[in-house]
C-alpha cells in the first residue's frame, strides 16, 4: 500500500479546521444570542411538567398551580389560614345557613366577557362533584344559585362551620371560577377550553404538554387593593410573560440556572444545593415554611397490616430522622414532626408520635411483633423509582422493618404504576399491596376536613381503606365543633387515635427551598408558587 | 502446427529479471520465488508456464511493484526495465512507470474492472493520471484505442458499466487500458483463463495483433499448454518458485529436457478421442426426455424476464458408458446436471432413473431414489464439509440407507483404497488433503452409494493438468470395475475427448449435436461444434508425444 503523505496532511488539516471553525462559529453566535435575553419574561422550572389542564379533575399540584395562574377564586386563604375576599365579598346569615357572595366590579374573563354569578355557580357545582371537601358541603346544601348578575346565594340544610375555610382552601382542588359553558363539562371529562379571569392568560399555541407552558399578563385584570398574602390580596403582575419549562434532568436545571438560562427553580434537588449556593447570582431560600409532610400508608384490608398490633410494631420500627436524613440530608430543610396535621398549623399536635420522632424503637417493635403473632407474611412495599422525593422512604423503611423482623418484599415500579396499583383492593400476591409512601403539602392535610387519610368509610375511603366508624365519629365531631378551642380538642383526640391505630404514619416535614436568579425579586412566601408581585430586574 | 520462430537476439532487452527472490514477510520459510531469471526482448512474447502455486503470478506482481506489502517482500535480485532497476524506485516514480512503461492485464476481467465506473472513464483515468491532455483530446485517444481493440459500437460501450459488457468485451477494455500509453512491456496474467474458448481465441489474436503493431514485449502467464503453443516465442517453466527450464517454444515442445516439463506436457489431454467402450447390454440407467428449465417467473411489478436455461434436452446413458455434455458458459449444461440430481426442479420433462421418473417426485418420495444417481462437484475445496472427518462424510449416505455403522466404516476404508488413498484418511479432515485428493474422496463418497449413474459436473476443471489426468484415470478405472454410467459435464474439449463415449454439444440451452465422441470431435456436423473445435488452442499439436498431431 502506498502512502501519499501530502494528501494525508491536507486531509487532516482540513478536518481539524472544519471542526474548530464549527465550534468557534457556534460559540460566537451562541454568545450573541443569550437565552435569557428577554427582561420581561420569567423562565421557571417547576417541579413537574404540566400535562393536565383541568384543575378540577386532577389533584396534581402542577395543575393546581396552573389554575392559580389563569383562574381566580371567590375567596382565598391568607398566611394566617384566614379566608379573605378575592373575587367576592361575603355575608353569612345569623343561623349560619345562608352564605351570600357578591362579585366585585371589573372582573373579566380572558375572552373579554364579564364574570357573572352564573359562571361562578356552574364552576362551584362542578368543583363540588370532584373535591372531597366540596362533596361534604354539597351533602348539606339546600340550594346554590345566582340570584342576580353579581350575587351568589348558597343555602345550607344544616350549619357547616368550616364552610369558608373549605371554599377558600388552596389545596388540593380550589374552586376556580370558569365561564359557565366550560364549567358545564361533565366532571368526569376534562375541559377543552382554558379561559379564566385570573392575572395570567394561557397561551395555547405555545403549550407543549409536559415540556413548556407560556402565560402572558392579562392586561384587563384588576387586582385587589390589599397587599398580597398567600393566595389572597392584590395579584399585581409586573412581567409580560411567564414561561414554565420542564427539565427532566435535575442537574441540567441547576446548570441552566447558574448559567442564567433560566430564572427560577421551584424545587432544586437537596443534594445539589451546594452548587447553587456557590453561585453569586443565585439565591436559595425557603419560600413555603410549612412545606411537605411525608407519610406512609398501610393497607387495612390484607394481612399482615389488617392486624393493629402489627401496624403498631411497624410504626415503632420507623424513625423520622432516618427517613428525612436520607431524603433531605441537610437538617436545615427538614424537621421531625409527629403531628398528623403538620407542625406550624393551628391543629398541629404530636401526641403518640414519640417513637417516630426519637429514632424508632426496634426492640419494642420486635417484642410487639412477637406478641402479635406475626407469621412472616411478607410486606409488599411499593417503591417508586422515578420520583426523587419518594425514593428514600421505602428504602429506609424497608431496612427498619427488616431489622424489626418483618419480611419485606420491596417492589420497585414507576410512580404511575404505583398510582394504578394502590387503587387495587386485591391481596398483595394478586396485584395488591401492603405499604406505600407519598408526600402532601401541609395545607392539604392540616385539618380533618381536607386530610384524605382520615376517611374511615372502608371501601369508599382513601387507598388502604380503613373501615373505622370511630374515625368517622371523630371527624363528624370536628365538623360540628363551633369554636377554635373545640376544634383543637377534637383534633388532639384524632391525632392520638390515628397514631394508636396507625391510620397512617407521618414521617416528618421538609421544606424544599426554591432557587432564583437575583434578578427575580418580590416572590411571595406561599405554599403555592405564584408569579404575581414578582419583578425581574436587569 | 506453425510456431512463432522469430529470433530476438538482436532486439533490445526490455525486461531483465535477475536472481529475483521473494519471501513471506517476516517468515523464514522456503522463499516464494527463488533466484528467478527472465529476459524479455522488444516485440517478444515470453510465456511463463507452471502449475498453481509455482510462483508465476508473484513474479508478475513483483515486476509491477504490486506485491501485498504486508505479506510478501522482495529479498533480493534486480528487476531491470530498460536499464532501470524497478526495485530501487520510490512509490511515486514506480507509480509513474505503471501504464506508461509497463502495463498489466488480469485473469478475471469482471472483477478487474471497477463495477461502478463507466468503462470509458476507466480508460480515460490512465490519461488523467499520466498526461495533461485537454478533455477532448483524451476522449479522442480513448475512442481510438477502443477502436484498435475492435470494440463494436464504441460510443455506447464508452458509457457502459462493466456488467453490461460480455467477458470478451471486458477483456478488450482491459487491453485498451493497458496499451493506451503504448508501454514497453505488457504483463498478461492468465488473461484468457476465465473466458470461453471462442472468446479466448479472439483475445489471443488481439494481443498478438497489437503487440506486432506497437512492438510491445509481452510477459504472458498461463497454465494452458495449448495457449503457449499458439502465442509464445519463448517459454519459461516454473516450479516451486524456480525457473526450471526455458527455451524457444518449438524447442521446448519438441525436446523438453527436464523431466518435470515432460510430465507436464504428457498430462495435457489429447483432442483425439479415446476408443469408445463397447455397449454391453443396453440397460438405460438414465433417460432424459424433453427436459426444460425456466428461471425467474414473473412477479408483480417486477421487470425480471424469465430466462430459458434449458429446453428440449433429451438423451440417455447406458450402463458402463460415459456421456459428455460440452458447451461454453451459459449453455445450460450445469442446469441439466442439477435438474437430473433434483437439486433444482425441472420445469418440464421426464428424468427416468432406474426406470422411475423422478422429475415430479416430492422431496420425501425422492429419497429412496437418490442413491441411484450421485454427483461430484467442481470445487474440491467446498464439496466436503470442513467440520467433518472424511469418515463421517463417507458413511453419511450409507447410514441413510440402512447400512450399519461398522459396515459403513469398513466399506469406507475399502473405498478410500479404491480411489487410491490410505485407509487411515478416514479419521482426518478435508483441509489435510490436496485438491486432487479431495476430489478422490468426493468420488468415493459418490460411489459408496453404489449408484447407477455418476454425474461429474466439471469435476476436473479446477485441477492442475497433472492431477486432472490422474483423476480422469481414476474415473476410467472405476467405470471399468463397477460398470457405472457417467454423465460428464465439461467445457474442455480435450477432457471430453479423453473420457467420453458419446458427446452432447449444448448451446443456448439446446442440444445442437449428439453423437459418438469420435464423430463429434473428428467430423463435427454443426457450425457451432466446428467453431468450438477450431478455437481450441494448440489443436494441431500432440503434446503428450512431443510432435504434430497426425491427421486421423
Amino acid at each position, binding site marked *: 500500500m502506498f502512502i501519499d503523505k501530502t494528501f494525508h496532511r491536507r486531509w487532516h488539516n482540513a478536518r481539524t479546521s472544519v471542526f474548530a471553525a464549527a465550534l468557534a462559529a457556534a460559540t460566537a453566535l451562541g454568545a450573541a444570542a443569550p437565552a435569557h435575553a428577554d427582561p420581561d419574561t420569567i423562565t421557571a422550572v417547576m417541579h413537574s411538567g404540566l400535562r393536565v389542564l383541568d384543575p378540577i379533575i386532577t389533584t396534581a399540584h402542577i395543575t393546581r398551580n396552573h389554575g392559580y395562574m389563569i383562574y381566580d377564586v371567590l375567596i382565598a386563604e391568607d398566611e394566617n389560614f384566614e379566608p379573605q375576599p378575592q373575587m367576592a365579598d361575603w355575608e353569612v346569615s345569623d343561623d349560619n345557613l345562608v352564605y351570600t357572595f357578591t362579585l366585585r366590579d371589573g372582573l373579566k374573563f380572558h375572552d373579554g366577557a364579564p364574570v357573572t354569578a352564573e359562571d361562578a355557580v356552574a364552576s362551584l357545582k362542578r368543583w363540588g362533584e370532584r373535591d372531597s371537601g366540596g362533596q361534604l358541603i354539597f351533602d348539606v346544601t339546600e340550594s346554590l344559585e345566582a340570584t342576580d348578575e353579581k350575587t351568589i346565594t348558597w343555602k345550607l340544610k344544616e350549619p357547616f362551620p368550616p364552610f369558608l375555610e373549605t371554599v377558600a382552601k388552596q389545596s388540593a382542588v380550589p374552586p376556580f371560577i370558569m365561564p359557565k359553558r366550560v364549567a358545564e363539562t361533565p366532571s368526569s371529562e376534562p375541559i377543552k377550553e382554558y379561559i379564566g379571569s385570573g392575572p395570567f392568560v394561557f397561551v395555547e399555541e405555545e403549550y407543549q404538554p409536559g415540556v413548556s407552558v407560556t402565560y402572558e399578563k392579562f392586561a384587563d385584570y384588576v387586582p385587589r387593593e390589599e397587599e398580597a398574602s398567600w393566595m389572597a390580596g392584590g395579584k399585581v403582575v409586573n412581567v409580560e410573560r411567564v414561561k414554565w419549562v420542564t427539565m427532566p434532568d435535575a442537574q441540567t436545571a441547576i446548570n441552566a440556572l447558574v448559567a442564567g438560562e433560566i430564572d427560577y427553580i421551584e424545587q432544586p434537588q437537596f443534594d445539589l444545593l451546594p452548587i447553587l449556593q456557590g453561585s453569586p447570582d443565585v439565591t436559595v431560600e425557603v419560600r413555603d415554611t410549612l412545606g411537605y409532610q411525608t407519610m406512609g400508608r398501610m393497607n387495612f384490608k390484607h394481612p399482615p397490616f389488617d392486624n393493629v398490633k402489627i401496624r403498631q410494631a411497624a410504626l415503632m420500627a420507623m424513625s423520622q430522622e432516618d427517613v428525612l436524613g436520607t431524603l433531605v440530608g441537610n437538617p436545615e430543610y427538614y424537621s421531625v414532626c409527629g403531628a398528623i396535621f403538620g407542625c406550624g398549623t393551628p391543629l398541629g399536635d404530636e401526641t403518640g408520635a414519640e417513637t417516630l420522632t426519637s429514632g424508632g424503637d426496634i426492640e419494642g417493635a420486635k417484642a410487639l411483633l412477637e406478641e402479635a403473632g406475626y407469621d412472616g407474611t411478607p410486606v409488599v412495599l411499593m417503591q417508586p423509582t422515578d420520583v426523587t422525593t419518594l425514593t428514600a422512604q421505602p428504602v429506609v423503611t424497608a431496612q427498619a422493618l427488616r431489622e424489626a423482623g418483618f419480611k419485606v418484599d420491596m417492589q420497585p415500579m*414507576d410512580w404511575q404504576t404505583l398510582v394504578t396499583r394502590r387503587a387495587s383492593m386485591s391481596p398483595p400476591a394478586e396485584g395488591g399491596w401492603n405499604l406505600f409512601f407519598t408526600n402532601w403539602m401541609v395545607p392539604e392535610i392540616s385539618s380533618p376536613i381536607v386530610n384524605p387519610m382520615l376517611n374511615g368509610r372502608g371501601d369508599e375511603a382513601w387507598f388502604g381503606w380503613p373501615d373505622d366508624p370511630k374515625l368517622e365519629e371523630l371527624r363528624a365531631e370536628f365538623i360540628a365543633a363551633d369554636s377554635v378551642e373545640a376544634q383543637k380538642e377534637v383534633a388532639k383526640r384524632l391525632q392520638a387515635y390515628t397514631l394508636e391505630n396507625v391510620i397512617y404514619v407521618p414521617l416528618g416535614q421538609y421544606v424544599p427551598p426554591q432557587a432564583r436568579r437575583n434578578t427575580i425579586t418580590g416572590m411571595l412566601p406561599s405554599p403555592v408558587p405564584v408569579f404575581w408581585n414578582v419583578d425581574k430586574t436587569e | 502446427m506453425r510456431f512463432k520462430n522469430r529470433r530476438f537476439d538482436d532486439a533490445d532487452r526490455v525486461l531483465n529479471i535477475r536472481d529475483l527472490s521473494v519471501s513471506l514477510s517476516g517468515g523464514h520459510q522456503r522463499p516464494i520465488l527463488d533466484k528467478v531469471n527472465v529476459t524479455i526482448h522488444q516485440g517478444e512474447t515470453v510465456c511463463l508456464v507452471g502449475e498453481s502455486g509455482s510462483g508465476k503470478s508473484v513474479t508478475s506482481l513483483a515486476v509491477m511493484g504490486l506485491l501485498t506489502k504486508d505479506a510478501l517482500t522482495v529479498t533480493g535480485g534486480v528487476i531491470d526495465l530498460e536499464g532501470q532497476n524497478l526495485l530501487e524506485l520510490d512509490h511515486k516514480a514506480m507509480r509513474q512507470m505503471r501504464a506508461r512503461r509497463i502495463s498489466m492485464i488480469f485473469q478475471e476481467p469482471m472483477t478487474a474492472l471497477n463495477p461502478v465506473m463507466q468503462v470509458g472513464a476507466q480508460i480515460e483515468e490512465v490519461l488523467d493520471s499520466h498526461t495533461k491532455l485537454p478533455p477532448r483530446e483524451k476522449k479522442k485517444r480513448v475512442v481510438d484505442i477502443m477502436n484498435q481493440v475492435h470494440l463494436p459500437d464504441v460510443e455506447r460501450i464508452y458509457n457502459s458499466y462493466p456488467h453490461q459488457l460480455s467477458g470478451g468485451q471486458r477483456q478488450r477494455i482491459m487491453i485498451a487500458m493497458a496499451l493506451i500509453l503504448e508501454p514497453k512491456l505488457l504483463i498478461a496474467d492468465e488473461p484468457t483463463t476465465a473466458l470461453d474458448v471462442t472468446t479466448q481465441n479472439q483475445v489471443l489474436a488481439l494481443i498478438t495483433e497489437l503487440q506486432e503493431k506497437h512492438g510491445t514485449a509481452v510477459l504472458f502467464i498461463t497454465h494452458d499448454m495449448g495457449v503457449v503453443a499458439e502465442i509464445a516465442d519463448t517459454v519459461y517453466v516454473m516450479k516451486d518458485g524456480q525457473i526450471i527450464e526455458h527455451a524457444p517454444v518449438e524447442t521446448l515442445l519438441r525436446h523438453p529436457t527436464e523431466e518435470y516439463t515432460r510430465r507436464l506436457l504428457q498430462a495435457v489431454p489429447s483432442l483425439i478421442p479415446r476408443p469408445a467402450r463397447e455397449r454391453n447390454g443396453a440397460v438405460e440407467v438414465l433417460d432424459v426426455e424433453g427436459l426444460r428449465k425456466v428461471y425467474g417467473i414473473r412477479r408483480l411489478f417486477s421487470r425480471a424476464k424469465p430466462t430459458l436455461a434449458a429446453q428440449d434436452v433429451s438423451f440417455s446413458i447406458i450402463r458402463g458408458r460415459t456421456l459428455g455434455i460440452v458447451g461454453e458458459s451459459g449453455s445450460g449444461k450445469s442446469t441439466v446436471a442439477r435438474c437430473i440430481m433434483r437439486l433444482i426442479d425441472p420445469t418440464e420433462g421426464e428424468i427416468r432413473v432406474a426406470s422411475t421418473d423422478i422429475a415430479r417426485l416430492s422431496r420425501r418420495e425422492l429419497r429412496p431414489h437418490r442413491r441411484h444417481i450421485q454427483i461430484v*462437484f467442481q470445487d474440491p475445496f467446498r464439496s466436503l464439509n470442513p467440520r467433518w472427518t472424511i469418515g463421517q462424510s463417507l458413511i453419511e449416505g450409507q447410514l441413510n440407507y440402512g447400512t450399519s455403522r461398522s459396515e459403513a466404516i469398513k466399506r469406507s476404508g475399502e473405498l478410500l483404497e479404491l480411489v487410491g488413498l490410505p485407509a487411515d484418511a478416514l479419521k482426518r479432515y478435508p483441509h489435510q488433503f490436496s485438491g486432487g485428493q479431495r476430489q478422490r474422496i468426493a468420488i468415493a463418497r459418490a460411489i459408496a452409494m453404489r449408484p447407477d449413474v455418476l454425474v461429474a459436473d466439471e469435476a476436473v476443471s479446477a485441477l492442475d493438468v497433472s492431477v486432472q489426468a490422474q483423476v480422469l484415470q481414476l474415473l476410467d478405472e472405476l467405470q471399468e470395475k463397477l460398470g457405472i454410467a457417467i454423465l460428464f459435464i465439461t467445457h474442455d474439449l480435450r477432457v471430453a475427448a479423453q473420457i467420453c463415449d458419446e458427446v452432447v454439444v449444448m448451446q443456448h440451452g439446446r442440444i445442437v449435436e449428439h453423437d459418438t465422441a469420435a464423430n463429434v470431435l473428428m467430423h463435427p456436423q454443426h457450425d457451432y461444434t466446428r467453431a468450438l473445435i477450431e478455437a481450441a488452442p494448440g489443436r494441431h499439436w500432440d503434446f503428450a508425444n512431443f510432435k504434430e498431431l497426425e491427421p486421423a
Partner: protein
Amino acid sequence: MAAAPQPTSSLQFILGAVAVPRHWQLGIGPIIAAIVLAIIVVATLFAPLYVPHDPLSMDAVQRLKGPSSEYWLGTDAYGRDLFSRVMIGGQVSLFIGVGAAIVSVFIGLLIGLVSGFFRIADAIIMRIMDSLMAIPSILLAIALVALNGPSLWSVIFAITIPEIPRVVRLVRAVVLSAREEPYVEAAIAVGSSMPKILWKHLMPNTLAPLIVQGTYICASAILTEAILSFLGAGVSTEIPTWGNIMAEGRIYFQIKPSLIFWPGLMLSLCILSINLLGDTARDLLDPRLKKREG
C-alpha cells in the same frame, strides 16, 4: 478523537499502549482485554467474599462521603458503600449481559434455522422480524420493562427481544449461503433428511458468527441496562447494577462524580474488553479476513 471523554483518559492510555503497531496482529490487545475481563469477572464473582460492607446497608449519617479507609470509594446518597455496590453490581450487570446473550442467541438460532430452511415459515417469520427490527429497541425495552416491572428477568427479557431479529437474520443468512455449498448438496444427494442436514451440516456454520454476535449482544446488553436505568426503567436499586448505580448517582455528577466514574469505568472497561475479544474472534473466524490479511 475530538469527542473523547475526559475521565476515561486512563482508558485511552491503556489503549494507546496497546495500539503499538505490529504487536497487535495476534495480539497484545486481545490478551490485555482477556486479562482485564478475567480480572473483572473473578473480582465481581467473588465479591461477596471480600467486600467490606453489605451493599444494601444504609447509613443516613454517612451520605455522599468521600473515600476513606472504611469506605474505599466513598458512599452514595443512601450512605451505602460505593466500592461494595460497584463490585456486587458487576455480578448483576455481567449476569444481564451473559443472560441476554445466551437467551437471544439460543432463541434466535432456533428461529433462524427454521426460517432459513422452510420457505413458507420464512416469509412469515421474516415479516415479524422486520417489524421487531423497526421498533426502536430502547422504546420496546422501556415498554417491556413497564409491562413486567423492573425485575432482573424482565430487564433481560426486554433487552433480549429486540436482539432476537438480528440473530435470526444472521443465522438465516448463514444458512441460506451454506445451503448452496456443494457439500450440502452432496448430503442431499446421498439422501440425508432435511432436519439432519439442518442440524448437522448447517447449524455448525452458524456457531462461529453466533459466538461473535453473542459477545456483542453481551456488551450491548450491559450498556442497554445502564440506559434503561437512566430512563427510569431499569433493575430495582435493591439489586445494584453498574447501570443503576450510575443512574442513581447521575444527579450528583457535579458534586460527587465518583458515583458515575467508578461504575462507568468498570462498565466501559468490561464492554471494551468484550468488544475487543469479539472483534478478535471475528477476525480469526472470518475466513475472508484471514485470506486478505494472511
